Each structure stands twice: as structure tokens, then as C-alpha cells.
């Protein structure tokens, strides 16, 4: 009897572990959904902090509403386009407005909705302080419903035997450096090319006027929230048996660490001063740089990818400034350029198969296609919208600030009384 009891006790843990295997996976994915949603708070704080106080409500509200409208659009149309039956390799043709009830189906849908919201919200900060609210949310709806899912269908869509065309080539982007971040960054670039800089940012006589954000502590906290949330963003790519969870999380963290180092080095070299805004963005650039390959990179190559990401953030932000492209929060640098770099890094640093030319070429194809699709689609959507409704606010509204002119709310009413009257 005693022997029987011992045998039973020795078997119990393995039974419990087996049952918890799938349950644990679902719980982890649910946690990842929440973490990715928390990233929106990070975006919101960074963008809110990097604009002038008279535009804080506007940019924060854009972040809020694009989660709502964007994820609704993705549920309605985008999910089907991205993950529906994809016999052509171009777009999915089933699964629109899915009514899934299974644990796995619902969690997968929820997780993908969070990704879609991330792709949309990247743009809001770049075009802040002059992009009208209504056209912005309409544009965000198009991006989450069409632009993001169509590229997603190419890179992630389909199923065994009928994958998206990029996936069929062997394109690797495990957590969306290109699919989510580059597409978001390139959409921002398309919108920026159309809408132009904030008035006074670049004078007609060539002067560049810096417009610092109103709350840099917000920016730092936002950066840390994003760093924290990124464990869910990349961690959701975990295998069912959790065999690669440690690798995903460690590489994610090392990417961020590398981003800090890279940004600091670049700022020191360019003698710009150790700008907190650039270092926070460098961290995010590092995180984006390991997002495509956190499952196939080693810790050391993740660190290298992150360092280069940090360098890229600072260098490309300066480049865009020289080109008079007024990206308020550095979204194009962080998400567009670092997304492209991170995707290329997979080709360069793929563990056990480094510098494989074939893989590098495939990754480059994905990078170029994402650039053309993101910039082109975004430019086209906003160009069309601009025929119907002015996407840019008037200079008078820019002067007054979008909080008052678009929302009749003041972000800091206690100490902005000398500015404008919200009741007018």
C-alpha cells in the first residue's frame, strides 16, 4: 500500500505538469496580450511628453481612439485579410468579423488585435501637433483594416501549403519588426511626406527651430513601460512547451540594453549631448532591432543588433531633420529604420547559419516591399482623404494648440490660464 502511494505521488506531478502545459501556455499568451496593451500606455506617455503642452490631449486621445477604432477594424476586416484562407499568397479571404469562442482562437485573435493597434499608433506621434483628429482616426482605421493586414498576409498569413508569398520565400520576422514596426514607421513617413512640418520648425531662411517636448519625465516612464510591455510583444512567440521563452525574453532585454549603449555612443560621437529623448528612443530602437529574430539570435548577436539599432536611431533622426521631415517623436527612426535593420539582422546573425546570402536577400526583399507598401499606401490613403477633408489643421489651430481647437479641453488647465480660453 505504501509502495502504491509512493508510485501515485511520483506520477501526480507529471500529470499536473502535462495538464498545466496548455493551460500555462494560454495564461502566458493572455499575459502577453495585457503586456502589449500596456505598451499603448508607453506610446501614449512618450508621445504626450514629446509634444508641447497645448497638444498633449490631442495626441494622447489619438492613441486612445486608434486602439478602439483600429482594433475594431482589424477584427471586422483585417484579421480575415491577414489570417484567412490565402490560396493566392496575397490576401486571406475568410474569417472576417470572426466569432471565435475557443480559448486558443480567442486568445490568438486578441493577441493579433493588440499587434494591429500597435502598428496604427506608431504614426500618431510622428504627425503630432498638426494632423487633424478625424482624418487621423479614419487613416488609422484604414491602416489597421487594410495596410497592416495585407502586408501581414504576405509575411505571416496562410497555412501549410498555402502561405503568404513572403513567408513562402522564407522571410523570417517572428514578432513583427517589419510586419508591425516598419509598416507603422513607413506609414508614418508617408503621412509626414504629405503633411509637411509644423509651422516654424524649419524657417524659410533655413533655420531649424527645435521644439522640445513639454514633459520629458513622461517620456522616460513611457520608454520603460514599452520596454516592460515588449516582453509580452516578443514573448508571445513562445513555443507551446516554453522551450524558447528564456531565449525570447533575454534577447529582448539585451536588445534594449544594446539600444541604450548604441544611442549613448552615437550621441558622444556626434557631440549632441546625452539627450534623454534620443537615449529612450535608442532603447526602443534596440528592442525593435531584436523583434524579428529574438527566436533565432544568440544573446551576443541580440546585443550587437541592439547597439546598431541605437546608432541607427540617432543617425536617422539627424538625417530626417536635415531632410526637413518633421517626425515629432522619432517614430520613423525607431520603428521604420530599426525594423528594417532588425529584419536584416536575422539574415546576418541567424544562429547556426550566419551570413547566409539567400536568407539575407529574402529578408531584404521583405524590407523593400514593406517600405514601398507602407509609404505608398499611407501616402495614397491620406492624399485621397485630403481631397475630402483637410488632414492638416489651420495655422491658427496650430497656434492655439489642438487641445483647444479640436477637443475644447486643456491638458493642464491649472497653469495654462494665460494661454488660451477653452470656453472660446
Amino acid at each position: 500500500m505504501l509502495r502504491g502511494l509512493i508510485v501515485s505521488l511520483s506520477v501526480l506531478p507529471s500529470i499536473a505538469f502535462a495538464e498545466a502545459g496548455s493551460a500555462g501556455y494560454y495564461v502566458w499568451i493572455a499575459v502577453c496580450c495585457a503586456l502589449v496593451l500596456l505598451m499603448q500606455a508607453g506610446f501614449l506617455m512618450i508621445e504626450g511628453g514629446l509634444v508641447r503642452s497645448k497638444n498633449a490631449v490631442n495626441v494622447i486621445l489619438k492613441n486612445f481612439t486608434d486602439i478602439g477604432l483600429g482594433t475594431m477594424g482589424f477584427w471586422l476586416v483585417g484579421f480575415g485579410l491577414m489570417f484567412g484562407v490565402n490560396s493566392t499568397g496575397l490576401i486571406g479571404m475568410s474569417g472576417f468579423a470572426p466569432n471565435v469562442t475557443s480559448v486558443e482562437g480567442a486568445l490568438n485573435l486578441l493577441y493579433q488585435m493588440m499587434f494591429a493597434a500597435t502598428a496604427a499608433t506608431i504614426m500618431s506621434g510622428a504627425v503630432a501637433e498638426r494632423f487633424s483628429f478625424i482624418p487621423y482616426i479614419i487613416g488609422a482605421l484604414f491602416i489597421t483594416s487594410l495596410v497592416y493586414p495585407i502586408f501581414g498576409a504576405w509575411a505571416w498569413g496562410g497555412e501549410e501549403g498555402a502561405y503568404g508569398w513572403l513567408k513562402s520565400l522564407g522571410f523570417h520576422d517572428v514578432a513583427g519588426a517589419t510586419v508591425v514596426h516598419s509598416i507603422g514607421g513607413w506609414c508614418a513617413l508617408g503621412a509626414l511626406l504629405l503633411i509637411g512640418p509644423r509651422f516654424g520648425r524649419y524657417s524659410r531662411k533655413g533655420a531649424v527651430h527645435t521644439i522640445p517636448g513639454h514633459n520629458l519625465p513622461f517620456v522616460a516612464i513611457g520608454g520603460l513601460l514599452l520596454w516592460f510591455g515588449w516582453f509580452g510583444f516578443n514573448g508571445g512567440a513562445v513555443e507551446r512547451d516554453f522551450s524558447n521563452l528564456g531565449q525570447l525574453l533575454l534577447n529582448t532585454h539585451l536588445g534594449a540594453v544594446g539600444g541604450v549603449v548604441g544611442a549613448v555612443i552615437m550621441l558622444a560621437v556626434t557631440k549632441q549631448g546625452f539627450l534623454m529623448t534620443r537615449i529612450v528612443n535608442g532603447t526602443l530602437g534596440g528592442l525593435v532591432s531584436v523583434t524579428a529574430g529574438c527566436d533565432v539570435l544568440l544573446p551576443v548577436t541580440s546585443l550587437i543588433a541592439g547597439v546598431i539599432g541605437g546608432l541607427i536611431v540617432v543617425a536617422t533622426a539627424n538625417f530626417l531633420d536635415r531632410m526637413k521631415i518633421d517626425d515629432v517623436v522619432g517614430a520613423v527612426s525607431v520603428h521604420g529604420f530599426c525594423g528594417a535593420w532588425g529584419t536584416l539582422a536575422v539574415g546576418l546573425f541567424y544562429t547556426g547559419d550566419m551570413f547566409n546570402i539567400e536568407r539575407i536577400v529574402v529578408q531584404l526583399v521583405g524590407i523593400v516591399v514593406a517600405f514601398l507598401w507602407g509609404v505608398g499606401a499611407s501616402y495614397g490613403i491620406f492624399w485621397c482623404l485630403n481631397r475630402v477633408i483637410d488632414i492638416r489643421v489651420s495655422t491658427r489651430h496650430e497656434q492655439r494648440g489642438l487641445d483647444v481647437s479640436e477637443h475644447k479641453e486643456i491638458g493642464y488647465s491649472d497653469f495654462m490660464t494665460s494661454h488660451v480660453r477653452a470656453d472660446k
Partner: protein
Amino acid sequence: MSSNNEDFYAQVVYTGLSRMTTDRNTIKSAFEFWHKKLSNRPFNIKEVVAYLERYAGLSTAEKKALFIAMQAASNKLPSELEVLPGYLTGGDDVPEASVPVAENLSSHNIVSARVLQSMASQVKRLDREAFAELATDLADVGFDEVSTLTNQALLAWSQANLSGLALPKIIAVDECKNLFHAFYLLCTELVGPVATDDITNVAVAETAKIEQAIDFDPRDLL
């Protein structure tokens, strides 16, 4: 327009103005404006009211009073209307000599001039080169959004090295807002948006202390 008709319409305009306000200086300024700009055109009450609204910044109540009084006067015979007082025909009972110039001006006029003057002074303190450019740009370009009279005032201001801005006596609130915005954009071009916002905030805070700010809040310019 015959001389008789012009005399009659002058009486109609005077009657309207005198029902709208008892302030002789306002009546004189508005009447002179009508005489200079509109007396040679076919008489149209709506047009007269619209022009005076634009250049004198009339309130809704003043506009209504002016319109009704002119409408009623235009249906009367010239003999039934009041004759023009001496201060409108060049007689000796002109009150303005004894009245300080400031009393001629509306609150929004004084407040607007003070805000712009303060902004210019701050640009001078901030960046002498930008200040010199500000004066040059004002003289060279002028603003499309404001009247010729206002642009002339700005030209005079720039020639005086941006000191002692005197806006036209009759200027509408909307024109003051346009003027402020155009000036704000010019400052933004020269010293940048953030410095311009700071300058504006200081100018508004300073101007809020003057007496006329009770009638016209400088924040209403923004």
C-alpha cells in the same frame, strides 16, 4: 450720386450712428469712414452696416440698432431728419481736441496694439538680429489678412523701429485677431514656435493688467 442724395444719405447714416451710440468720437470716426469709402457708391444699408461692422467691431446689438435706425431714417424725408452736427461738417463744435487720443480707441484696438508691442519688445530682448528682420519683413511684405490701413500702420511702426504701434482708429475685432495671428507666424518664422509661445504668454499676461483688458480679454486675440 447727386449732391442732394449724398446729403440725404449722410443724414441717414448720421441718424443711424447717433441711435447706435452717443459717443461723438465714434460717430465721427464711423461717419468719416463712410464718407471716404462708401459715399460714392450706390447707397445700400446692409453694405454700410457690414462695412462698419468690419471696421468698427460692432457688437450684435449695435449692428441691429444701426440697421433699424438707418432703415427707418431712409423712409423719411430729408426735412424730417436731423441736420448734420457741426463736428461732422467742419463746424466749431468738434469735441476731439479736448479728448485724449486713447479715448478715441476701442478696447480691442488698445489691447491688440499693446500685445504686439510687447511681443516686439521681447523679440528685441531675445534676438537683436531677429528683431531687425521683424521690422524689415513688416515693411517689405505686410499682411494679406488685414486692411490697407492696418498695413500702413504696421509700415509706420516698422519705420519707427517697432516702437509706439498705433493701429487705425477703426479696426474690427476679427481684423485684430488676423493681425495677431499673422504677427505670431512671422515671429515663429524668426525665433521659432516655442520662443514665440513664450513671448505670447508674457505679452498676454502683461496686457491683461491694463484697464482696457477688462472690456477685451487679450486671450480673445489668440
